[in-house]
């Protein structure tokens, strides 16, 4: 028996060593191939693309990557302003209903054809559903606003609006595609961006290659981009710490797992407002005093310190990142538990109790709910937390408005209308059921106001109303954490979803 067990142990050891030998042999060959090539970057993203067609894609996760494939007439700057892109300049008619765009000369599409006014007309007609064979409007933002598109000459195009619309320009970053390429865009996207599409595997990722004829000379810096999808954030973080990825957005909790010397963690406010949206139709919340009490009972600085240190606090549905439009209402409600108790007692709800429905996919919102639950105990408020999945949240809470309160992040846009109209009473996703006639009027006025200074005043007043009426509890502009390989330079951040790959390069 002794020899027997010796033999067996030997067999077992051989088996193990053979297996690890196989792994080593393969590993040595292909190990960390991606990181040694100096002209390639691997970008990790958390979700798959919803569509490669720039006129159908809706997810900001898709848009932030495809900005590198498609370029619009305009594009956002790092300061959140609109700057010329395919259009060198533009003129707005005196009554603000017609926009004439002068196209940049010598711009090429990835398929080799030259950009002309006909391509712009095709793209906008397609969005509005005016192309034979594609008669359905793809985006209401254009279909409801654009009357017609005229080609004035090869490099000049005039877009006539149905009526005055101050935010139209901020939508013109939408990608321009070659004439008649619509039906094939979903499988073979063709634009004018710095990177051209190579291939896409659903669930795996996408490969992009430098577009040599990109209109900005010297850009992009890198030859190849690989986009890898990590449905599981933990897997992404592991790949990151193994330096298989050079660029990935991460969450605060995972920073500690990223090797310090290998990566730089870039931090910047997201231009997103995290809020506890309170349903203004829910019986107790119909009383403004209760809504105010909820604002007095919260300690935003504690939430920030625990979940996103350094994040700007907000007091209305607007991030200070958009400084030009921002109304500073800081400390309008600073924590005052006694005052909160008093307001609750006055309103007849000394023992207020309600449920927060929160999407489980977003730890920052779930964690915020738990902190709030504790903080509210001080004011005698009982909070129940119900975690739902994202899809349920979208259907029940966001579209169905079936909730008492919820925590969510609303992303910032280039134009304040897109941010603040969310709470106008007629908006289909006014999930907090905010209803204020003056507010509605301001949103209507802001949409057509062409005087920039007056427009700023309108939106500042709208922000004030949200705060004064305690429409909800606005918490913070969370911080975006991006892990960037320490060997790289040229990282730029934008106040909207845009991963600008053009300037990224390896340091010499």
């Amino acid at each position: 028996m002794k020899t027997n067990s010796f033999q067996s142990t030997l067999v077992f050891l051989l088996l193990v060593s053979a297996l690890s030998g196989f792994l080593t042999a393969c590993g040595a060959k292909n190990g960390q191939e991606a990181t040694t090539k100096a002209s390639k970057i691997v970008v990790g993203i958390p979700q798959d693309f919803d569509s490669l067609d720039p006129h159908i894609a809706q997810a900001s996760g898709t848009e932030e990557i495809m900005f590198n494939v498609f370029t619009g007439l305009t594009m956002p700057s790092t300061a959140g302003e609109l700057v010329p892109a395919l259009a060198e300049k533009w003129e707005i008619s005196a009554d603000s209903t017609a926009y004439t765009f002068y196209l940049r000369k010598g711009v090429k599409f990835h398929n080799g054809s030259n950009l002309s006014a006909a391509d712009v007309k095709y793209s906008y007609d397609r969005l509005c559903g005016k192309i034979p064979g594609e008669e359905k409007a793809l985006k209401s933002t254009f279909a409801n606003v654009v009357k017609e598109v005229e080609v004035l000459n090869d490099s000049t195009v005039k877009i006539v609006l149905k009526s005055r619309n101050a935010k139209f320009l901020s939508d013109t970053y939408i990608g321009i595609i070659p004439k008649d390429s619509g039906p094939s865009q979903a499988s073979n996207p063709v634009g004018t961006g710095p990177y051209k599409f190579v291939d896409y595997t659903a669930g795996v990722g996408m490969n992009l290659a430098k577009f040599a004829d990109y209109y900005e000379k010297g850009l992009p810096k890198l030859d190849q981009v690989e986009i890898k999808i990590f449905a599981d954030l933990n897997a992404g973080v592991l790949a990151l710490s193994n330096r298989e990825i050079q660029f990935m957005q991460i969450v605060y909790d995972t920073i500690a797992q990223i090797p310090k010397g290998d990566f730089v963690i870039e931090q910047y406010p997201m231009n997103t407002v995290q809020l506890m949206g309170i349903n203004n139709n829910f019986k107790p919340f119909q009383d403004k005093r209760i809504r105010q009490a909820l604002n007095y009972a919260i300690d935003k600085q504690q939430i920030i310190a625990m979940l996103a240190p350094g994040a700007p606090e907000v007091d209305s549905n607007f991030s200070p990142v958009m400084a030009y439009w921002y109304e500073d209402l800081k400390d309008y409600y600073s924590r005052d538990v006694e005052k909160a108790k008093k307001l609750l007692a006055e309103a007849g709800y000394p023992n207020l109790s309600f449920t927060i429905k929160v999407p489980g996919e977003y730890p920052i919102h779930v964690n915020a709910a738990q902190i709030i639950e504790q903080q509210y105990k001080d004011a005698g408020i009982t909070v129940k937390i119900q975690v739902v999945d994202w899809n349920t949240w979208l259907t029940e809470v966001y579209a169905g408005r079936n909730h008492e309160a919820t925590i969510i992040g609303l992303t910032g846009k280039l134009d304040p209308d897109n941010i603040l109209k969310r709470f106008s009473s007629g908006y289909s996703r006014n999930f907090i059921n905010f209803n204020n006639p003056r507010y509605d009027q301001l949103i209507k006025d802001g949409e057509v106001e062409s005087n920039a200074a007056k427009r700023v005043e309108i939106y500042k007043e709208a922000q004030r109303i949200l705060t004064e009426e305690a429409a909800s509890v606005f918490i913070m502009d969370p911080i975006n954490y991006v892990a960037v390989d320490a060997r790289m330079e040229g990282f730029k951040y934008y106040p909207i979803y845009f991963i600008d790959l053009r300037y990224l390069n390896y340091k010499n």
Partner: protein
Amino acid sequence: MGKRIIYSFLTFLLVTIIIFIFFQFIPGDPVLSKIGLEPDPALEAILRAEFGLDRPLPERYLRWLGNLARLDMGTSIRFNQPVNKLIAARLPNTVALAVLSFILVAAAGIPLGILAAKLNDTKAGTLFNAITQIGIAIPAFFFAMILIIIVSIKLKLVPVTAYVPMSKGFFPFLRGMLLPAIAVSFSGISITVRYVRNSIIEELESNYVLAAKNKGVKSGDILYKHVLRNAMIPIVTILGMIFVSIVTGSIVIETVFSIPGIGSLLIAAIKTSDLPLTQGICVYISIVVIFAYLLLDIIYMLIDPRIRLKE
């Protein structure tokens, strides 16, 4: 056999109806899921019409069934691509992972089980028992994480995202599948080891072994020529069950290793209420399970010809 096929088909039909009905009760709307936080009424209407979501439920089911008869499973709402194409692109990965895991289970489980039987009542045997106990108890995804940390991060033998499509070479593909396969098969191996061990020990105590021993047959001959064959019947049964659990177990493991397989596709489909895609995947899984049990029956017949007589 004919009866079995009819039963299989009915089971399959029932599965599709259950999924279809079940989907009506779980919250979530595929179109709302697709358009997310920035709703657009125009796009919403297009999508509802495009995927026939504006039609009544029975009509949608019958239409789906009709299309299925023509081997068309419709278009995925989430991915805007034909369900067949999505599944075809991912099926080889899942099948490869399952087959490789299964080979590992059989190739490691049976010899190790024999070894464990031989080591019975020794200290090494006790250690073996402890390891297999851990193997059964440890969740596959947790074991996968430990594997990644040890093999990829500490030893740097393979990258974390080792997956390479088969089109880029069979061996790189196989290398990418190895770690996930180990993760999937670990519990299967442990179960197999225990079954083989117990089954052999039981057989070794039976009368015919005693008779053979008394006749002076060598103990190796007894084990490999007589005992093993008889011990195999319950082992094949358990292997069949393990195969099904491998197919379902790979659902979680695929996500951990970022392998684009049927499992990760199914998770994406359910998360976004993508009914056509979910249905399509379930059809495939049903076919795999039915096929696995059919295969099991054939293997039974090969091992023990008497089973054929029962048909």
